[in-house]
């Protein structure tokens, strides 16, 4: 989505090219004429060298048109609102404690504060002080990574 929006943003790229040792055709001609010029002036031409002519980009400047600036602002707004809404809608993250009847619940809605769920600590009845206690039961948890649902099933004899 980000890539698509970036491509929609009309950013005009101007590349300013300069040459380090760029010589125009005229300057090449004048250079080639140097031996003759030297002889005509009574001198001796000792060295002839030809400079390579190449172009090299010294700097790349990005210029934004007014329209592009508006698009960029809209893009930034959309991205920030997307992030905010995503944060609002993130569900509580459940993290079971392996082997124990305990699950940690992290709430993005409440600044990632972590709460503990003892589920349960004890199961009892009128006849039994407890039929299952957290210290006696070894729990195997399953987590559905798509939905975030955690589950367990265990037997106590």
């Amino acid at each position: 989505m980000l890539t698509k929006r970036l491509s929609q943003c009309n950013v005009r790229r101007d590349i300013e090219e300069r040459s380090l040792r760029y010589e125009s055709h005229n300057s090449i001609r004048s250079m080639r004429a140097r031996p003759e010029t030297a002889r005509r002036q009574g001198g001796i031409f000792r060295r002839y060298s030809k400079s390579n002519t190449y172009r090299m980009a010294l700097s790349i400047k990005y210029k934004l048109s007014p329209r592009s600036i508006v698009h960029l602002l809209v893009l930034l707004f959309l991205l920030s609102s997307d992030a905010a809404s995503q944060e609002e809608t993130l569900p509580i993250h459940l993290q079971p404690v392996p082997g124990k009847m305990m699950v940690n619940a992290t709430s993005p809605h409440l600044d990632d504060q972590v709460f503990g769920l003892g589920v349960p600590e004890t199961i009892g009845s009128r006849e039994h002080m407890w039929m299952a206690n957290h210290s006696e039961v070894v729990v195997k948890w399953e987590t559905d990574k798509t939905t975030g649902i955690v589950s367990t099933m265990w037997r106590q004899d």
Partner: protein
Amino acid sequence: MTYTLRIVPAVDYVDLEMTITNLSDEIWHEVFAFNCVSPARAPAFEDSAMQRTYMQVQGQPQALAHTTRIQGRRPGMGIYAVLQHTDHMPPFAEAFQATSPNQSDGAWMAKIADTGDAYMATTTQDALFLFNNTNLGCIHAAPNFGDIEPADAVTVSSRVYFAKGSLQDFIKRYDADHLPD
């Protein structure tokens, strides 16, 4: 017995779906699950003075600081009977020797953050008793599974909130929410 639990997360609450199956040859009465909800790493919900920890008394929220606490075997722990089950307190709850004379007519316990704009609350449709421990900051509303015949299974749901809002917001929401049977 077998115990099945499914925890379904949402943005600001989780639903607990619990099933207990009686594999014995005797009937079990007033079966309960002692579910704990604690602010493990949620310092805003620290409230050892119980000024921001509430239960329902006569239809209104009441801070536990204004209830009579009975010093039991373990300091900081308090048991509150629920009005319709005062005659059926399980031996597990009695063993704490910390049952307050104040009774609740609700099935929830809630804590408000020190900022006043968020709450954690444990709720169920029918609580057998309520409990809190100021040492750990935890709150409990023990869901009542009723009587379970041999080979029978009973499923109960509870909802635990970790939400933004005031105490009044929580009560409105609790009243509006329909917990599944």
